[in-house]
């Protein structure tokens, strides 16, 4: 089920084109990204010159202690936040020159999201939620694609249910179905299992894994749970806004040990 890592992460220094990534073009690329919050004495550097590339059909977990900048990395990589410096490229398009509308359209076409909570629009049914990105793009949702996506996450029978009638795990699987149905190149998942029990977590993580293996999508998962990170092809560990470690896909125990080391170093 697991694939060997086929992408290279460069932790420091500017890249020389895409040559280091080998044969695979990266779906998302960050170069020397700096993110800063606040001003003056209370200024906080959330990302301090991070460069990373996420190749097509790869599953990367981003880990790190609280405040290490892992969520900010995801926001910058997804085009939700504008970095103070550095470049972000999604699907070959550089984001810094784009207007808010253009970035939104790019996000709509190329990016899918799964969050810890507040994933679904409460007044819409599961299938309406899944078809929403297409609607927002001004297209009639492809009913077959919506049905397939819900079927793939095992919720074919609950298409007409509203979020309030679904369990937390089911809601999260609807969110995964939504991310699949739009056929985005990259799916960003921010602590998608944070509020779920272990059985529901496993279902969601299996689904994300299947997105990479069977549908060739790129998944970037932000988590603090080594068990979740063990589903990834590689793990990036952040501390103080820098990538401090990287390891290929491995077991939860090893990941836990390496993150503990990273935290000690801080």
């Amino acid at each position, binding site marked *: 089920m697991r694939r060997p890592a086929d992408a290279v992460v460069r932790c420091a220094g500017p890249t020389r084109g895409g040559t280091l990534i080998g044969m695979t073009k990266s779906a998302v690329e960050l170069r020397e990204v700096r993110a800063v919050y606040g001003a003056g004495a209370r200024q906080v550097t959330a990302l301090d010159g991070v460069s990373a590339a996420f190749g097509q059909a790869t599953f990367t977990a981003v880990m790190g202690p609280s405040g290490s900048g892992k969520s900010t990395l995801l926001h910058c990589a997804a085009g939700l936040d504008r970095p103070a410096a550095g470049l972000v490229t999604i699907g070959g398009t550089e984001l810094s020159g784009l207007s808010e509308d253009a970035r939104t359209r790019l996000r*709509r076409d190329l990016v899918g999201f799964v969050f810890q909570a507040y994933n679904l629009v409460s007044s819409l049914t599961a299938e309406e939620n899944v078809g929403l990105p297409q609607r927002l793009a001004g297209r009639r949702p492809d009913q077959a694609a919506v049905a397939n996506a819900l079927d793939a996450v095992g919720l074919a029978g609950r298409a007409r249910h509203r979020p309030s009638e679904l369990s937390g795990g089911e809601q999260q699987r609807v969110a995964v179905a*939504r991310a699949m149905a739009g056929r985005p190149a990259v799916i960003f998942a921010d602590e998608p299992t944070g509020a779920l029990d272990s059985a529901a977590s496993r279902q969601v993580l299996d689904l994300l894994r299947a997105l990479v293996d069977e549908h060739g999508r790129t998944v970037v998962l932000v988590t603090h749970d080594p068990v979740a990170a063990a589903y990834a092809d590689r793990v990036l560990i952040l501390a103080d806004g820098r990538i401090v470690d990287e390891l290929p896909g491995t077991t939860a125990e090893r990941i836990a040990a390496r993150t503990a080391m990273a935290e000690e170093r801080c």
Partner: protein
Amino acid sequence: MLTVRRLAGAFVAVTLGVLVVACSALLTASSRPAVPDRLARAAVLVQSPATRTPADPFPPTVPWSSAAADDLARRLGAVPGVSTALRDRVFYAQPLGDDRIVEGHGWSSARLSRARLVAGRAPQRAGEVVLDRALGPVTLLTASGPARYTVTGTVDAAELYLADDEAAARAPGVSTIGLALTPDANVDSVAAAARRTVGSGGQVLTGDDRGALEPRADARTRWIGMQILTGTAALAAFATVFVVASTFALAVAQRRRELALLRTIGATPRQVGRMLRREALTVGAAGSVLGTALGAALAPVLGRVLVDAGMEPSTYTVRFVTWPIAAALLLGPVVAGIGVSVAAWRAGRIRPLEALREAEVDRRPMGRSRWIAGGLVTAGGVLCGVATATAADARRAGDFALLGAIALVTGAAVLAPAVVPAVVRLLTWPAGRLPGATALLVRQGALAAPRRTAATAAPILLTVAFAVLVSGLVKTTTEAYAVGRGAALSADQVVAPDGTPGLTDAAAASVRGVAVLPTTVFAGTRPLAVLGVDPSAYVQAQRRVRVLSGSLDGLREPGTAVVTASVAALRSTAAGSPSGPPVGPDSRSPSSAADPSGSPRGSPFGAAPGLGSATPATGASTLDPAGSTPGSDSATPGLGGVVGVVFADGTRSALLVVAVVADGSIPGDLLLSREAVRRHDPSALTSAVYVNGPVTVAAGTGARLISVREYAAEADAAEDRLVWIFTLLLIGVSAGYGAIAVANTLLMASAARGPDLRVLRRTGATTGRIRRALAAEAAVVVAIGSLLGGVAAAGALVAIRAGLSEQAGAPVPLVIAWPVVAAVLGLCLLLSIAAAITPTFRGQR
């Protein structure tokens, strides 16, 4: 995305707003002057030339003199299809103690009326009368005094007829000639022929246009009624925009996360805004359809109420015309679109990241744009307040006052979040010392979210401020006029009419005092209000008369007048000083008297007497017929000049100006001697006699003795009553909207606090305690709104009072209609508490 329940408030507001507008528009469109019964049988009516004045929307027409009317009637009678042309003479005549009938007519004009002689015979000589009551002796009041008459015949309508000769003596001037047609005559061709005959010397009216001859008092009442409906509709539209705006603003604030989620998964800012706008338009359209239907259903009911209230004639019915319905249908989406605009703009600015934040981040209570907008609107309101205080024209002052009120109140609502924390601390300071949890909850609940507190207080602020301001404004203005009138009079008491339109000469002569005999004269197409007085006595009674030049004593000479500065300016801009000697008041040049009929092409007032036919230049100048050379500018306008006027009896005179007084220093445009007025207007009635020292007024003379203050207060009583109805209606509409808005925002706000309530309950708060806390919080919100609204309104009122005191020349008391304010406050409090605790009942189930 936003559920139906969330938008219920906006829907109700739009529905009600459209209902009010649809109803008002239908009633307004249906309101047309009715042809008076007394002239109903004249298919064609000829009215004397129209006039224009900014002071009165329904000015009287310039009467024809007896000779001119005779001539015109003779020529109209010769028009093919006309059997007779009848002059309608109108004069004061009133059966003693009967206030239904206050005017009499010549018997010949009875042929124009619907009324029929049901018993007896026509009046043939002086002292005979036809009335709607039993034959026999009757006492009639006329301009000269009470007199015994004999009822020779009865008619089946509340009308009074005297013999034609007596009528001609009482009303030498004629304003209407009715044409009785032969049975086979065609109304349109007769009217066309009559127009050719009359030329520019009058107006020929047929069909519904004859409604122009409805009594001026009726026209005025109807006009006020329409003003009321228009004002109510405008307020309803404004309030609808306000409620829709606050509903959507709150909906956006509550749905921030959801909207941010939409932004995250690919909705552009424009899409989010468009989504809200579409929702508003849907709500607006749905509300429009329902509101229009309800309005159309309600209009006939309200129409009957208007008839009962005396604002419309009994013949009034609602007609379903297209434009009011179309306008009402269009209005809903339009006001909803305006109302949603700010919320839509704000929703578009929500950043996608807000969907990912764990807790609601506290926003600053006041953004920079809010400060700027609030400051600008408040400044506008203050400017309007200044304009109100300094406006010369009462009607414009009213407009400014209303605009200023709206601006000040909106400004207070916008700036409210800045002061909410301070006010809450002040209001809850004593409660904060208490050991119980309720006080703490209330205090912190209101303090934690100043913007939410301000948003829920805003509709209360609006309602209370509006009630205080408008009721206070109306009452204070009424009071100011009374104070002004009272302060101007230097008298102990006033003899005023009692159930009559004015005092007869007999009643006026029975007491020693200063009598005022008003009439109207016409300078060209402009009617001027004249007071016939004894000059020296008048100056003593009217403190305010300010003589700019000349002396009032000159009025003793015949053919003289005292004019206000604006009348002097009027004639001096129209023409220079007279080239010839002043013409006496009674110089009735034959050429000018015959003018209306004699020169069909020219204006009857264009030709100067003595100059014969008008030159093109003077033909255009209608202001000064008194013989002057156009273009020769007068160095000293006014004094020594001549004012050419037409009197109520239709005769023209040139009056020598012996004094010019300041504008507003006399309650009219012109002073003449009492004798001059009486000579030209035999039916003029004395409006009041100002008396000093003890006097007695005999019963049965239509007079009574009242204090100066009473007299001043009741001068405009009838109109004041209508204005007060108007005011209460406006306050009612605004309070209704305030109620909707209060209930709506509080329901939405407390529903959003469901999680808070659950936490409270889990930590041991009983339902009763939670309800008490919520009720107390709502009461605090009401207190904040009332306080801010009251302050905003009081500020405006104080400014207005200062201006009014200046105008009245005496301190004007600030009158606030406390019962009205208390009722509005009580309604707000009741609804707020009910709305605040409603979710706790739902939560229990």
